[in-house]
């Protein structure tokens, strides 16, 4: 395994090269542009056999991906922000038609006001589209998740599309030292694409995308829920198999110094790294802090997450997206998980880092101090608040 120093976009583009999808349809958008740009050069240099469809919008990108996936084969695209928002209609159709499309999403803020920097609004507002969502802490995990995504999405018990999320700029554009697997190892791991009812099977003509009204629509949607229920098990088995190949073991979530913790922070993506450092500092000061970083966000592993958190006295959920007039999206999941588990922790929600605002160690420290105070019996001042807002 070769050590390389690359950006997240390069790492994921390389994963796509190693997988060599049959069709990619894409439209450029910052900060994902670079990813498909690099992939385009693989096409031009004959390093992949992929049919590249350079469409005129993200709506058409996802439409073409759906057409290609229905046709029968391995299909990928990548996008961000407004691009994902423009795809929104088609995201439901990709999952509703049970098409395993792999889409790296380089997470970015949504307009207005226009902002090209990283936050999680794009993927969070797409969380109910029936797609599986994997989240990554760094370029290594974005690369690993992308490769694993093919196995998960294409699993015969699932056949669903996957978004592989990574923080815009912080992961996509920062150079990081990481490891690539050898090409043949990736090829063997993802295996041959298994075609299920391909549209291009002329001998057995099929109609895709029927109208289903009040008679069976309800059952159809119930079935999607049922299929989502199978995802967790497949993610676990694929993740374990990948660990044997790569030496890198992931889980449904990443748990850091949580077992004996009294207070905990839940946060997605790259902010986890910063938070872990600050947790270490507080551990040295005798404050028992820990962290949980969800990796599989859809379907959300409620039971496992609750088990990992329910012994804590206080939990802060950090959201890099907002739901105006409500709590942050991750906070809502964690609250639901803990309530159903009869959990005890007191909970606060911090919105941080919108539109690429830096998440600083001082902010993590501020949260741990507040959690510590709550754990000692202090009152919760505000359930939902914003970190690092300028005066």
């Amino acid at each position, binding site marked *: 395994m070769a050590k390389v120093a690359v950006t997240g976009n390069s790492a994921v583009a390389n994963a796509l090269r190693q997988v060599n999808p*049959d069709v990619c349809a894409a439209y450029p958008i910052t900060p994902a542009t670079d990813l498909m740009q690099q992939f385009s050069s693989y096409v031009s240099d004959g390093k992949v056999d992929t049919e590249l469809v350079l469409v*005129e919008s993200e709506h058409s990108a996802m*439409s073409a991906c759906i057409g290609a996936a229905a046709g029968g084969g391995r299909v990928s695209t990548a996008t961000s922000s407004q691009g994902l928002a423009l795809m929104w209609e088609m995201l439901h159709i990709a999952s509703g038609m049970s098409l395993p499309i792999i889409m790296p999403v380089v997470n970015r803020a949504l307009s207005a006001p226009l902002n090209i920097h990283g936050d999680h609004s794009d993927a969070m507002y797409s969380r109910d589209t029936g797609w599986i969502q994997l989240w990554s802490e760094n370029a290594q995990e974005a690369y690993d998740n992308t490769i694993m995504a093919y196995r998960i999405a294409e699993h015969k018990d699932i056949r669903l599309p996957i978004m592989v999320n990574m923080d815009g700029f912080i992961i996509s554009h920062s150079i990081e030292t990481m490891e690539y697997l050898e090409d043949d190892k990736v090829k063997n791991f993802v295996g041959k694409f298994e075609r299920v009812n391909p549209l291009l099977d*002329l001998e057995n*003509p099929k109609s895709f995308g029927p*109208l289903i009204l009040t008679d069976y629509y309800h059952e159809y949607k119930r079935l999607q829920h049922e299929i989502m229920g199978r995802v967790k098990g497949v993610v676990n088995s694929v993740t374990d198999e990948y660990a044997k190949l790569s030496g890198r073991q992931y889980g449904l979530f990443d748990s850091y110094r949580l077992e004996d913790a009294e207070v905990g922070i839940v946060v997605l993506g790259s902010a986890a790294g910063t938070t872990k450092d600050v947790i270490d500092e507080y551990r040295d000061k005798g404050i028992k802090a820990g962290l949980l970083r969800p990796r599989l966000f859809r379907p959300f592993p409620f039971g496992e997450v609750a088990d990992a958190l329910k012994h804590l006295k206080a939990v802060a959920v950090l959201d890099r997206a907002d739901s105006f007039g409500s709590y942050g999206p991750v906070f809502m999941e964690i609250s639901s998980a803990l309530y159903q588990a009869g959990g005890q922790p007191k909970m606060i929600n911090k919105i941080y880092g919108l539109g690429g605002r830096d998440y600083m160690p001082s902010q993590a420290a501020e949260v741990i101090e507040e959690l510590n105070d709550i754990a000692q019996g202090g009152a919760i001042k505000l359930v939902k608040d914003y970190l690092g807002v300028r005066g």
Partner: protein
Amino acid sequence: MKIKTESTPLKLKELAKKENPFESGHRMCSGCGAPIVVKMVLMASEYPVVASNATGCLEVSSCISEYTAWKIPWIHTAFENAAATLSGVEAMYKAWKKQGLIDEKVKFVAFGGDGGTYDIGFQSLSGAMERGHDMVYVCYDNGAYMNTGIQRSSATPRGANTTTSPAGSVVPGKQQGRKDLTRIMAAHNIPYVAQASPSNWRDLMTKARKAIAIDGPAFLNVLSPCNRGWRSQTNDAIALCKLAVETCYWPLYEIENGELTVNTTPKEKKPLDEFLKPQGRFRHLFAPENESVLKQLQEDVDREWNRLIKESSGESK
């Protein structure tokens, strides 16, 4: 099971023996033009066809789970993206070819109404044509959003009464003329663009056959009466199409590699009124106060017809 595809001579006697890839029993309204258009286009093909369909009347009436009228591979995903969806299917076909998964020459045909083609699907259509996919896009143009209940589209003729451009006491129907989509598609400099009408079935099928056979993008704009929206009779679709051609409201022409040919010149160009009168959507135009709209409509038709004749380099029949 796969239906047989063969190059049948475009003669009724021969065509009658051919299997129709668009099965009867679908739920289109009686007298609708769209299924006639679909049947003619698909039966003209000399190759196996994979079709895509924009959301619309044709789609909701032809594939209601567990039934389908399509005996060929068919896909519907949404309203505005029949062309983009089919781009993806065609790209996957190329991948299959490259990998030796399929030998046969397969052709790709998208169907959309004027709503899904002129308006909401215009960008997707333009993109697919510009990219040069091997695909024929067939617009069945009935001149309004009929599926949602007869709302105006950019293909609705001037003065027409629709549910969103109702003929009222102040505003006499649609205020704008039609978008000339056939010309716009020709401006994409694609190998083949044509306008056809089911009344001239051999012309339509010849054009469809040619469009499908071409390696690359082609666009067919086909007139498709809707008796619900046109406020006409269920048995007059073909008669109205004939009048549309004879009045030059719907000129039959093709643009092949940039060369424009008018395919049918009426022996006697009928006044536009003859096409408008049988249709309830134009009834209000015959009131004295709306005379100017009728005049404008006739002028629009004359201008375009004269332009076509001037530009036509081929032999007209």
